[in-house]
């Protein structure tokens, strides 16, 4: 019925479309690296959890499988690259570890090992050591940096990883005897090739994943601007018209409020409570002003220049602005009130003005504590000041000023 409800439906539609898109880009959602149960990168923990096997058995299996031409190691590295980290709070219905599955995994491991042994593909000790060294190098390169900390230390990791890789491969080649027993020079070539591709692999995978995220964001913002354009040409126009027409005061106020909400949703990404849960001055002024508009049949023209996070002194200013606006709405006998707030480096100044009947400030009856207590007193308590300029027939202007803590450098 209301414009607000309508836009909510569309958010849901958007959300479901996006969900579809997300699924196309993802691995099974339960298959992820474990952030808690981890020794190196949480692959065994995550995999074990997914398959319903004790993570320790999983680790053992991977180590043993590494003897089979490094199969376990390769599996681990692939898992490291492919699997995202599970979000810690995520609830997933995983099978609980069972002995049966662990035995199954053990048999599978031994079977694979025997198979490789039969084919003469089990590794000699020298080779295992070489690969292990190379693996540590790769691990360093592969250490998936957090999304936020992508470049920091990456160079260092690459250097360390590269050196270790070279040492590992060097050892491999130096143990010529080992190569003889395997009898495959091709394997050494293969190892080098795999090493190089593993080095570059993470970047490609990461790039691919980022691409997906970016695509989702682009789709989201495109959808949003399409909806914004449509609402702009329809609902907002109608709301503006209602406010112009000789509609009853209540309808006009409602139309104005709806317009304000819809506009905020369409053009303003900022949540109503401010960024990161820190309420902003402009957002709380907006809220206060809307409240006064709703309670009293007035239009409040709010203009805010600059912006800053709220602090107790500014809370007091917002409260005083509210009081002054309420006074204007109640006593001035006019339809509109102007509120102007300017944020400067060291102070915030607010002006609340109406063109109403005005009064003689010195003759305010004692019963009206609003001005004296809620405005002047409140500002004084917070180290600010308040002035009330008014004369009968000439309207009223309340000037409020309070200091603010200058913003620190963003890096601090």
């Amino acid at each position, binding site marked *: 019925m209301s414009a607000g409800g309508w836009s909510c439906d569309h958010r849901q539609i958007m959300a479901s479309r996006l969900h579809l898109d997300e699924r196309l880009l993802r691995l099974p959602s339960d298959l992820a690296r474990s952030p808690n149960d981890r020794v190196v990168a949480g692959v065994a923990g995550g995999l074990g959890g997914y398959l319903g096997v004790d993570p320790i058995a999983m680790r053992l299996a991977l180590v043993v499988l590494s003897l089979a031409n490094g199969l376990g190691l390769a599996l681990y590295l692939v898992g490291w690259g492919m699997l995202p980290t599970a979000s810690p709070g995520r609830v997933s219905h995983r099978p609980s570890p069972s002995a049966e599955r662990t035995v199954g995994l053990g048999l599978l491991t031994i079977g694979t090992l025997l198979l490789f042994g039969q084919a003469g593909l089990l590794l000699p000790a020298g080779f295992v050591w070489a690969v292990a060294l190379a693996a540590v190098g790769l691990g360093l390169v592969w250490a998936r940096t957090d999304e936020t900390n992508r470049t920091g230390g990456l160079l260092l990791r690459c250097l360390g990883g590269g050196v270790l890789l070279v040492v590992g491969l060097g050892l491999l080649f130096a143990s010529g005897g080992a190569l003889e027993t395997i009898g495959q020079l091709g394997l050494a070539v293969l190892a080098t090739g795999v090493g190089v591709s593993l080095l570059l692999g993470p970047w490609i995978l990461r790039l691919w994943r980022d691409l997906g995220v970016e695509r989702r964001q682009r789709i989201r913002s495109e959808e949003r601007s399409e909806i914004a354009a449509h609402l*702009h*040409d329809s609902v*907002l*126009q109608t*709301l*503006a*018209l209602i*406010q*112009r*027409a000789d509609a009853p005061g209540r309808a006009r106020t409602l139309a*104005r409020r709806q317009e304000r909400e819809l*506009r905020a949703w369409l*053009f*303003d*990404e*900022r949540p109503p409570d401010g*960024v990161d849960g820190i309420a*902003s001055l402009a957002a709380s002024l907006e809220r206060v002003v809307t409240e006064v508009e709703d309670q009293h049949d007035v239009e409040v*023209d709010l*203009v*805010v*220049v*600059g*912006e*800053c996070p709220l602090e107790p002194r500014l809370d007091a200013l917002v409260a005083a602005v509210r009081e002054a606006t309420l006074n204007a709405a109640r006593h001035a006998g006019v339809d509109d009130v*102007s509120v*102007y707030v*300017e944020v400067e480096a060291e102070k915030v100044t607010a*002006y609340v*003005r109406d*063109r109403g009947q005005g009064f003689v400030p010195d003759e305010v009856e004692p019963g009206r504590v609003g001005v004296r207590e809620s405005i002047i007193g409140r500002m004084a308590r917070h180290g600010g000041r308040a002035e009330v300029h008014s004369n009968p027939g000439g309207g009223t*202007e309340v000037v409020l000023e309070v200091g603010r803590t200058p913003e620190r450098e963003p890096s601090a």
Partner: protein
Amino acid sequence: MTAPRVFLVDDHQMFRAGVRAELGDAVDIVGEAADVESAVEGIRATDPEVVLLDVHLPGGGGKAVLETLKPERPDLVFLALSVSDAAEDVIAVIRAGARGYVTKTISSVDLAAAVTRVRDGDAVFSPRLAGFVLDAFSGEAPPEVGDPELDQLSPREREVMRLIARGYTYKEIARRLTLSVKTVETHVSAVLRKLQLSSRHELTRWATERRIV
């Protein structure tokens, strides 16, 4: 003084009808259009003094009308009218050459006054537009490119903008600053010129960023 000859461009027929009815005798509405193409044709044919121009129009928006007609009719005056008060809309039409900007919720008396004011060569700033200007011209002038005179407001201009943002009319500002109304108008026109010509990068950057502090 004769009623200004006004051409009304808005894609909502209801809105045009409303404005026509409200403005009544205060202005002489010589024509109407609902999109860019017919607006350009209609304005060429009827030769109005003031074009009341909706910012959002099919076929390129109000900006397209301004950009087509401004070179061939430099004296034609545009007053932008929009339901949107998003900063980027305001800045785009003003920089394209509009003499002022009012939102569609303006009262009919104020709208008629604004039309007459722009017809007489003055600029029309709503409190919100004044707020945008103060935001965009806050801080030091950029040291790099451009004309430093264009890139910042004089203290007097800043004062006038603040009073407009506080809800003062030009007449009230004149009384308060003990200036003539004409002088106030001169200051506002100077600000408009800076807004149109300044190369301050804030003017373009701020439009997209100002709400994401």
